[in-house]
């Protein structure tokens, strides 16, 4: 499957799901009852149509250039996925252990992915300086609230 084909199939999935969900939306109690559904349902149908067009077009294209169904896999997919996993962990830690600690953890992991484990000294330095500096700038200087670590001043 080519990436265009995959995106077409995904768009089809989104289109159909969205259409079904749109029709299941509740009635409006004032005005026209079906009014809140019209726009989303239209979007769902439009997406489905576009996806079918896309798939058809791609099928024709593949038919014309037989055999060239090479799959372009990003060799760095693993790093990207790991990056997302760390980001999820970061989000979960964020309010529990405070901005500074969670950000040090997050940057440390991201830097590990980018900069390599062997450069841990630089990584730690960057992570700590960034976290503290951002905290001081946002929370202290600008008055933008960032979660504090329980029991510690920062």
């Amino acid at each position: 499957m080519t990436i265009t084909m995959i995106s077409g199939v995904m768009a089809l999935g989104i289109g159909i799901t969205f259409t079904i969900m749109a029709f299941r939306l509740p009635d409006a109690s004032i005005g026209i009852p079906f009014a809140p559904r019209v726009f989303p349902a239209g979007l769902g149908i439009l997406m489905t149509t576009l996806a079918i067009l896309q798939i058809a077009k791609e099928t024709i294209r593949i038919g014309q250039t037989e055999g060239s169904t090479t799959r372009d896999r990003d060799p760095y997919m693993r790093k990207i996925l790991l990056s997302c996993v760390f980001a999820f962990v970061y989000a979960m830690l964020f309010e529990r252990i405070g901005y500074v600690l969670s950000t040090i953890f997050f940057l440390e992991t991201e830097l590990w992915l980018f900069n390599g484990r062997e450069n841990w000294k630089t990584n730690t330095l960057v992570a700590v300086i960034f976290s503290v500096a951002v905290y001081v700038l946002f929370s202290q200087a600008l008055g933008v609230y960032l979660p504090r670590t329980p029991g510690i001043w920062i």
Partner: protein
Amino acid sequence: METLTFLFEGLSIAIQPLNLMWVTIGGILGTLIGMLPGLGPATGVAVLLPMTFVLGPQASLITMAGVYYGAMYGGSRSSILINTPGAGAAVAATFDGYPMTLKGRAEAALAISAIASFIGGIIATIIMIAVALPVARFALHFGPAEYFMLFVFALSATASMSKGDTIKGFIATVLGLMISSIGIDGQSGVKRFTFGVLELEAGIDFLVVIIAVYALGEVFKSFRGIAEGTKKAQTKFGRIWITREDWRRSMWPILRSAPFGFFIGALPGAGGTMAALLSYSNERQLSKHPEEFGEGAIEGVAAPESANNAASVGAMIPMLTLGIPGSGTTAVMMGALLMLGLQPGPMLFQQQSTIVWTLIASMFFGNIILAFVNIPMAGALVRVLAVPPKILYPIVMGLAFVGTFAISYSLVDFYLLIIFGIVGFFMAKAQIPTTPLILAVIVGNSMEQSFRRAYTIADGDLGIFFGSPLAITLFVLTALSIFGPMVANAVRARRAVQAA
């Protein structure tokens, strides 16, 4: 004549050293705040709001205006350098600004952005002095039907801009509209696609989607570039300036975009983001080399920068003359005016003319000072690119998250950020353009709501969408934006055939 007298009075107050100092301080602070993703002009002004108690009305308004324009300047700095727009209005600066950086032309991009912002701001201020009141009155003709047509125009202009694959461009648009339909439907109170998540009821903030698609998408892409050695730190830096050729290409786009941006800004609710995106697509259509747009065309930075700064001046008009805030930032500024005991509205010009004209005059000086401050500042900022990408990108990631948190202090936005980051990355892989998605997320909800408002007001008569000269004009513009490029292409093809 009376206006001129007031203007000179305002100028003479604004040029007092102390006031010049305030506008400079405000401008620098604003630039710094604007550069941080998630913190735009509205937050900047809100953060400095408490100051208004201490400084007194004139100085505090002047400082706030400085912050406002500074943030507009600053927002595009991070767009150009790290593909992370500081605020909505700076999105358009990523389209060509970041490609310029990738080509080693960050200096020119930063310079043209400051120059264009400066000229746009000055032109808009001059227009404002001349026609503030008539423009405010004219903007009142925009009812829900006209707004709907305006949004349709914006969407079609952007969608037709997407290169190559039209189907993919439309898929991106529809996906964006789907995202924008999440939340409470204002006209009926019905909750749509919120899945019981409280934070989704107010809808998904478009800034989250922008930061995700641009900043995170870029970080994900960079793994490959870094490993393969195509992405390196910049070691040599030039002067922050532009070439004669750059100026020749940018001059007209800047001059055209300023009055245009000003007017869009003066429409309550349309705002700087719309102004920037529309002027970008205008210039692309007018250009002789539309294929260079998105690849680092300097006029692609110049036009939206001029337009969004002009729009920020325009947005002051409904606030000052009618007491109607046209944007998030002006809403906060209006709160400040109220706290100072000034009642924005038609009477403000009469009762408090000195303050109003001082404010207008300080926009003038503010823009001049900001241009001077920003060029050396850009010289320092561009050194960010000397940081090796393998350290810079994790930092961009950190900034994206803290900026997202600052938008609405919600962890739900974190998860959305990650999800849309993946979506953005996948779209780039599948060569689906992201610009139509972003614009659709920005205008989608207003577009649907405007339609429904007009529909209710007209008791279901669709004729309302063609019921005024304004609506018809916008309809014609929409048709032109869709069919114009087709005709132009056909003409070009024919010429090529004839030449051959």
